[in-house]
């Protein structure tokens, strides 16, 4: 219903009076200004990421590119553990999203079945966690006792199920007509077969939406790694980025220093940071068109009463 309506509204043709046209100009003006405000930080990011050291130093207001120099990107890649961290982030995103989707889908489907014994109890068990938790320290100690310290799995397993997405998916399964399940049962299929052969194909829009949300969350996570990971070989990209831009501890490492000395170049720390920010943004930018295709639907489904 929500998807169709915007076109329906367009059918109403407003005859543009003079006042109406003035209003149009003002509205467009505001929206264009807002667009500039949102785009500008990204422009600045690209600008600084391809700037030469001497240009940043010598220009008080560096706002138009004087040169496009990809040297900074080469150096950013040489940052200690950078390449490794891309591997960690990719692993966490791929495996984490797959496991999240599998457990969320299975659980959501089971919770959506009216014949599940103690269904209400299980549902409340899940929902209460959105309101109350043990707090940071008790949670940390449980994680520690489970051996999650310095394990890549800490970025995959503890955030595996998002209760909000679980409920979205359960609502979706509840909306699928019962007769499909009943006829499959008559044919002798069990619940697992029904889920994987019939329900998952039917629920593919919501599954795609939630897969993208999970993937973005895994890629963006830095907090779990900051809490639990000491081993530099297991640090994800976003945490490397945080060390560079927030802690501002730019320890360039030997490989990088040597490369810079050999090439007789100087790299401004700002350029290095912005090149890393750009490289971290690119994967999100790549999935964004798919995200956008689904998220409105996702939010609408969420608004349906639980």
């Amino acid at each position, binding site marked *: 219903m929500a998807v169709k309506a915007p076109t329906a509204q367009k059918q109403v043709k407003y005859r543009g009076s003079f006042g109406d046209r003035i209003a149009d100009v003002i509205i467009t003006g505001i929206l264009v200004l807002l667009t500039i405000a949102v785009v500008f930080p990204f422009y600045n990011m690209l600008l600084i990421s391809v700037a030469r050291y001497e240009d940043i130093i010598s220009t008080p*207001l560096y706002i138009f590119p004087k040169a496009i120099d990809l040297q900074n990107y080469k150096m950013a890649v040489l940052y200690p553990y950078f390449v490794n961290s891309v591997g960690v982030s990719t692993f966490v995103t791929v495996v984490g999203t797959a496991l999240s989707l599998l457990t969320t889908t299975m659980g959501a489907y089971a*919770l959506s079945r009216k014949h599940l014994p103690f269904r209400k109890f299980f549902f409340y068990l899940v929902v209460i966690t959105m309101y109350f938790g043990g707090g940071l320290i008790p949670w940390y100690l449980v994680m520690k006792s489970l051996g999650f310290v310095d394990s890549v799995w800490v970025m995959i397993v503890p955030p595996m199920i998002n209760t909000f997405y679980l409920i979205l998916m359960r609502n979706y399964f509840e909306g699928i007509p019962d007769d499909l399940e009943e006829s499959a049962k008559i044919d002798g299929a069990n619940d697992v077969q029904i889920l994987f052969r019939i329900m998952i194909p039917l629920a593919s829009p919501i599954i795609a939406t939630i897969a993208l949300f999970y993937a973005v969350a895994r890629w963006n996570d830095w907090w779990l790694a900051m809490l639990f990971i000491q081993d530099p070989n297991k640090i994800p990209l976003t945490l490397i980025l945080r060390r560079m831009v927030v802690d501002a501890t730019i320890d360039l490492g030997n490989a990088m220093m040597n490369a810079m000395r050999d090439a007789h170049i100087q790299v401004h720390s700002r350029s290095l940071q912005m090149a890393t920010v750009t490289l971290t943004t690119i994967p999100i930018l790549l999935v*964004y068109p798919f995200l*956008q295709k689904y998220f409105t639907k996702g939010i609408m489904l969420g608004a349906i009463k639980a």
Partner: protein
Amino acid sequence: MAVAARRPESRDTLSNLARTWRKLVEHRYLFLLLSPLLAYYLIFNYAPIFNVQTGGILMAFKQHSLTKPFSEWPWVGLKYFQMMWGKPDFWRTMRNTVTISFIRLVFEFPMPILLALLLNEVRHSRQKRIYQTVFTFPNFLSWVLIVGLMRDMLQMNGIVNGVIKSFGGTPYNFLANESAFGNYAMLVLSNLFKGVGWGSIIYLAAIASIDPTLYEAAAVDGANRWQRILHITWPGIKSTAVVLLILQVGNILNSSFDQIFNLINGVNRGLIETIDVYIYRYAFQQSMNQSFAAASGLFKAVVNFALLLTANKIVSRLGENKLF
């Protein structure tokens, strides 16, 4: 007599048990599907509350010790809560949390509504889509990344101070200063940058479900654009706005940990440190007193729980769809 009377009852319990057992067996495949989920919630959400071995929330009531196992910690009752209530930095943090939440309520909450109303007035659906695409994108970036963008623009040699200097002004240290206005404005603006487009989607969806014949009728009656917004569009999204407002009030203690944690430093700590950041600091950066950190965490969890429940009650009283 008594025995005879009890007999059918006990047989009833037995047959009840048998029936339950049969039901469980009958639905064993459903339980197979449910089991990873149950294990997950028990381990990651309930063990931190109840686990006796690692402490759970009972930790807040026991004397912290680094050398002894939890079971040997002596009970101290409310000692750590009293310690917390006696700390000036705790009250400073509570005040910051409520202040920031209130400022967000006033200056952030209305913005997605205004943006949705503006976007709804764009007649070309293609243009509208382009605006939406741009405004929603930052929502999918992590705060680390956004703070990275902010730091580059706002630092002393950054582009914003470059503009200030070129107009003859003195550069301002946006990232580390003790101005309440400066810090809160930075929090509000950066949060809007990240979230306003995303926030407007739910209102646009509400607008989209308004019956288009209302607009047609209004056009026939000669209503102008402002009247259409005021009498058709706004009533169509008002209930959504009320629900979200109440839920945000319920979330008053949750004040964007990621954003503040990445922007905080020694200079602005007194103004922007909120309760979550405070708990983190006491748990991992300072003193390492686990019992104290657990006590402040429990205090927050309980107050938060009460606020959320109240908010949810009010929403359902209003006859609106609860989110959950």
